């Protein structure tokens, strides 16, 4: 259930530059507005893009969080692949992986 709120937080950040600025200035306050587990807060704070992907965060949301966190495209793809290696298969969500060996 908590995955829903991780995604909702990212949805709000993607839509609203003001909220995005607030988030990067004071993440803990923003986290407090959402029902998140400790693992989810840690993954968002680092950020651990690979773990967020494994948790099942929709990649259409995750991609933009990675970009606003400073990842370029190859780094983003590699972070998800590293996440699979470290944490195992995607746990839930629409964008489950096949073999993780796309053409890029």
């Amino acid at each position: 259930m908590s995955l829903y709120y991780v995604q909702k937080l990212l949805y709000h950040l993607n839509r609203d530059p003001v909220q995005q600025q607030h988030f990067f200035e004071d993440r803990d306050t923003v986290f407090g507005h959402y029902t998140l587990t400790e693992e989810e807060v840690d993954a968002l704070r680092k950020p651990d893009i690979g773990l967020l992907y494994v948790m099942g965060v929709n990649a259409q949301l995750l991609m933009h969080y990675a970009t606003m966190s400073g990842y370029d495209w190859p780094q983003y793809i590699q972070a998800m692949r590293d996440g699979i290696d470290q944490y195992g298969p995607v746990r839930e969500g629409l964008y489950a992986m096949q073999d993780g060996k796309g053409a890029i």
Partner: protein
Amino acid sequence: MSLVYAGTCCHSPAITSRGEMADPQLRRQLLEAFDRQRRTIEGAGAEAIVMVSSEHFANFFMDNMPTFSIGIADEYYGPIEDPNWLKIPRTTIPANPDLSLRLINQVMQSVDVCFAQEWKFDHGMSVPLHFLTPQYKIPIIPVNINCQSKPMSPLHRSWALGLALREAINSAPEKIALIGTGGTSHWPCTPDSGKINEAWDRTLIDHLINKRKDALLAYTDEDTYREGGGGAFEIRTSVCIAAATEEQTGEVWFCEPIPIYATTCSILSLYQQPLDLLT
């Protein structure tokens, strides 16, 4: 009859964000096909573009996800993505709320739709608009089909939406172009990004240009997910346009897999106004 042109096009954000990383010849051919579609829309005198897309959590979220939604705003805004990433400047996009209202009222005679007086475009709209009306000279009527989050409506409802949109467009005096975006195989923004099922895509496109209703409606989400990835749920948009233009055989103006753009990029022309209807 006010439908003056209909077609579909790809909307991968990589076409602009990673544009120069593609094979130069393929990119040139793709951009030429986009430009052919732009010139056809302009040449047909389109006074509005009804654009059927699948947005990616730019406006709609799982707290209240509409199956179908049509914009009725005074103006739109986009793209929501970082413009330095998407390489499309943020801007306001012209609308026509009066036309939106008339289209929505007519569509609602047969298909229930939500309406939205606020709408921020993401790449699903902004990438096609960047090529099809780069100066944003033509008002846009955005239409969204939920292709991002289950439960999704069955394909026969996209077909019904297409029929309803066509009837609504025909009831309006304005010259209107109808464009669907997205929808071939892709596994976007995942470690599988770049996978393409070209054979699946070409079969789908053949069904689309030949308006094979039974074949198109026979696609199941399970098959689509297995063969085309999560991104291919967007076939709902092109099925909608095929329904709206059922009476004409379409043409493939471009169709090639471009892995760095994460999909088979296609430009399909699905309806051109018959010569005897041109004024």
